[in-house]
């Protein structure tokens, strides 16, 4: 496994260098503010290009926007089952519930719409964003609970049905819109991006896997009974109704269960690493359409 990890990081580095050279002439929001030549200065623009190119090259028959469908983009038998079920999917009930919850006023008379731009409709693709005032990444789930607390309600569980339903509804209103994550000209935003990247590539757990082990190195392959999803577009379908759960589950739920599955220690939902991880992964999928709420095995 160590050899593979070295191979992976070597491959990543070489692609990044190549892409950086090619993209080097494009103006970047970051390079203009930072002195050039700083050690390990990340170039998210170039990295996103390299990341995309890696997957497009690995799966030349898969259209770019299809990556948002995860394993269904890579496996025909699974795709057929998914399409058949998607005609009238079981997640309809969660979606309806989400719409209802979203419209239900808080005790003070306000609604979720009052907390979000555009009344909360068609904005999912802008999350997460880096909040300059607080200096941290704000995800959609975090924003929803903050909305509740700001209006005198107690927060709901990040891994529970209500949050899944709410984010399902909000994702639905953004279906088809491309991810549009911004990294502002702010050292702290870049740090959050880096932090997310670091988490993504760090091995952990008894199985000593990093996120990249499965989702960069072996997408499309079987891990026990599952077909691994590619990391490109991996959050576009969230939240997802998993047949395994028999219910809709949030990004927080998926991150924590993924950690458990590799026999690692799950972090607290919406902890800094998870929010930064979501930031990193979402940014890399800029331009790919929101397809949520999604369905998965």
């Amino acid at each position, binding site marked *: 496994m160590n050899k593979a990890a070295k191979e992976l990081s070597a491959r990543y580095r070489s692609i990044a260098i190549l892409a950086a050279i090619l993209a080097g002439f494009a103006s970047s929001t970051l390079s203009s503010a930072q002195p050039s030549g700083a050690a390990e200065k990340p170039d998210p623009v170039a990295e996103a290009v390299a990341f995309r190119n890696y997957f497009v090259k690995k799966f030349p028959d898969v259209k770019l926007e299809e990556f948002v469908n995860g394993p269904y983009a890579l496996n025909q038998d699974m795709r057929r089952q998914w399409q058949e079920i998607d*005609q*009238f999917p*079981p997640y*309809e*009930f969660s979606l*309806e519930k989400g719409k209802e919850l979203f419209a239900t006023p808080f005790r003070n008379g306000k609604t979720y719409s009052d907390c979000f731009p555009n009344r909360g409709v068609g904005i999912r693709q802008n999350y997460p964003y880096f909040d300059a005032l607080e200096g941290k990444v704000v995800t959609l789930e975090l924003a929803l609970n903050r909305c509740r607390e700001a209006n005198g309600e107690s927060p709901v569980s990040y891994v529970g049905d209500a949050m899944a339903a709410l984010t399902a509804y909000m994702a639905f209103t953004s279906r088809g819109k491309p991810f549009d994550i911004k990294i502002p000209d702010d050292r702290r935003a870049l740090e959050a991006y880096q932090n997310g990247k670091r988490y993504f590539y760090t091995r952990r757990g008894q199985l000593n896997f990093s996120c990249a082990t499965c989702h960069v190195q072996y997408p499309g392959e079987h891990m026990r009974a599952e077909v691994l999803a590619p990391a490109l577009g991996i959050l576009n379908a969230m939240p997802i109704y998993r047949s395994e759960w*028999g219910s809709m589950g949030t990004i927080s739920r998926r991150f924590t269960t993924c950690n458990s599955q590799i026999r690692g220690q799950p972090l607290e939902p919406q902890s800094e690493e998870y929010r930064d991880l979501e930031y990193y992964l979402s940014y890399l999928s800029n331009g790919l359409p929101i397809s949520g709420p999604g369905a998965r095995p």
Partner: protein
Amino acid sequence: MASSIRVRAIANGETTDVQTLIQHPMDSGFVKNDRGEFIPAHFIQELTFEHDGKKVFVADWGTAVSKDPYVKFSFKGGNKGDDLKVSWTDNKGESDTATVKIQ
């Protein structure tokens, strides 16, 4: 919509195509909860579709039908605007019914 029943009934030339999705746990009785206790069987046994006072389709289900069950079928006749009545009963004696218009 408080009903557990979702229906799409579309008049398609000579036939009406019907798809239905029902919110129901369809617990088989074989699954244990976190405390190791069996979750009791709770599943729809009979699902009936009626058009113009006649039964056009009847489903008798066992525990092996998936949660939030789905079924699709077609019947001759049925015009846009006609009523289609869908009803189910389960092993606990619970039931639900919905009447939709054929599109």
